[in-house]
């Protein structure tokens, strides 16, 4: 009987890369996503000539700088309001399943499926001169104020659009909080408020972080709503970019604005990654 020691180098789970499986998507994204962005970055430095002028222009001219600032502060407002409104709702969904939860979930899902343009349109009608709110004012004999095409109107609509995202992200983390912790806290003598403050809320913190980071970055770059409802004077970055391209064909400048926006977003995500790890966001 011969004995043969067989050296076998094929190991499952070793370093071999499954190329055929990942090459298609990797290639596609590189050519059809990385490349366009790269080209845009290139343009920002090269149009109209090889220079950093576009950036200095964007950051120093007060009009543009204030646009950037405006965008950031509005996004912050939106994030905070969404958090305040969304937290109780997510809490209810996560801790008290029941008919209300089902109804609520259905509402949230329906809102998700409704496109941004449509939701913005609805606000256009709501806040418009022929809409119900204006009629309410008139019913009291008061001239309705200018509600559309102002920062508040755009903000209000964006809160409405972002709220489902915030609720969903909060819920995703909350529903995994083991209710036994709260029971244990109660058993140890904590009243519901203290139990919430010391047990539930800290455990929900990752959800809060997820929700805030996502809503904030989405608001920064949001396009449709500010374009349709926003003020032409107090613009958000996306309005400015659109204006620069469509009306002024200022490719380089628009690209630099876009790059600034992109960098802002990436920096935020990197900070988030430092504290929480980005992979949290996509499980």
């Amino acid at each position, binding site marked *: 009987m011969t004995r043969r020691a067989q050296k076998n180098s094929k190991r499952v789970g070793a370093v071999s890369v*499954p190329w055929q499986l990942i090459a298609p*998507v990797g290639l596609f994204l590189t050519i059809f996503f990385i490349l*366009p962005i790269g080209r845009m970055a290139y343009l920002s430095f090269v149009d109209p000539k090889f220079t950093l002028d576009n950036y200095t222009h964007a950051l120093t001219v007060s009009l543009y700088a204030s646009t950037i600032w405006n965008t950031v502060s509005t996004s912050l407002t939106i994030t905070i309001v969404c958090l305040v409104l969304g937290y109780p709702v997510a809490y209810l969904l996560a801790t008290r399943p029941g008919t209300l939860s089902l109804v609520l*979930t259905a509402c949230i899902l329906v809102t998700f499926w409704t*496109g941004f*343009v449509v939701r913005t349109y*609805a606000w256009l*009608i709501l806040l418009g001169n022929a809409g119900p709110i204006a009629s309410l004012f008139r019913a009291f004999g008061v001239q309705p104020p200018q509600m559309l095409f102002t920062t508040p109107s755009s903000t209000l609509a964006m809160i409405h659009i972002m709220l489902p995202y915030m609720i969903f992200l909060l819920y995703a983390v909350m529903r995994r909080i083991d209710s036994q912790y709260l029971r244990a806290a109660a058993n140890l003598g904590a009243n519901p408020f203290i139990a919430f403050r010391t047990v539930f809320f800290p455990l929900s913190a990752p959800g809060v972080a997820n929700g805030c980071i996502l809503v904030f970055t989405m608001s920064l770059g949001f396009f449709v709503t500010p374009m*349709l409802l926003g003020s032409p004077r107090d613009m958000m970055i996306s309005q400015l970019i659109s204006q620069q391209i469509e009306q002024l064909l200022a490719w380089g400048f628009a690209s630099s604005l876009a790059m600034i926006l992109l960098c802002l977003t990436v920096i935020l995500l990197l900070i988030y990654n430092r504290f929480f790890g980005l992979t949290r966001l996509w499980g």
Partner: protein
Amino acid sequence: MLRVFSFLIAVYLLSPTVLVAIMSFGDAGSFHFPPRSFGFAVYQSYFDSGPWLVATYNSVLIAILCSIAVMVLVVPAAMAQARYRYRGQEMLNTLLMLPIIVPPVVSAVAYYGFLSPLGLTSSILGMVIAHTALALPVTYLVVSASMKGFDLNLERAAMISGASRVRALFHVTFPVLRPGLLVGALFAFLYSFNESAVSIFIAGRNAETLPKRMFGSILTDTDPVIAVVSTLVTGATLLGAVIWLLAQSKTWRSAINWPMGTHAELDRPTVKAGGLV
């Protein structure tokens, strides 16, 4: 108290959809709300309008092509990520998530600048390319979640029973994963269908989708046709959801984890503080 608040929020969230639906049944030529008269006049405008119907057709076509392309790209990648451990895995994950990280307006500018010189603006192909890239992250999340929940022992059981790797995939893996894959395709479809920012920039006249047309018409149309489109789309989506939920009740949920779950389900908690299951 909590319930009252949540109920109000539900109303708040739902009211635009409802409002818009009511508008669609209102009188043509007016944006008055509540509408002064009711009827199908606005629906008539929609169905009579060539451009609107073309936009609908474009939206559906692009969305279908997009979801096919996305699934072809995503499914192998999700399998690779779920089953193997290799160098650069983290990097691929990040790459896959990039399109969603980049703000829509930035993507819009990038695609506009990229597709213009190639002559692919205002074309179906250009739109499909852009939408596919943008829909990848969301679809990937859905598909890989269902793959991660897939019990690999099922494949092993198939193999030890005499099925080769390939046969195991077709007889066991794909049938069991089918719901997750369908959801993925659906997400891709809906993403493309609702995509507005990038489409507004690159759709042009030849590849006008519904979101683009709605955007353009919001300030120029005399008819609230948008209301009709929105209501029809929401209605169709709701119908689809109901049908799907009914079909789902007799499926093999025991073998896979759902990414979103049914929210009302009392899942057993999977995360304890400290991250252990």
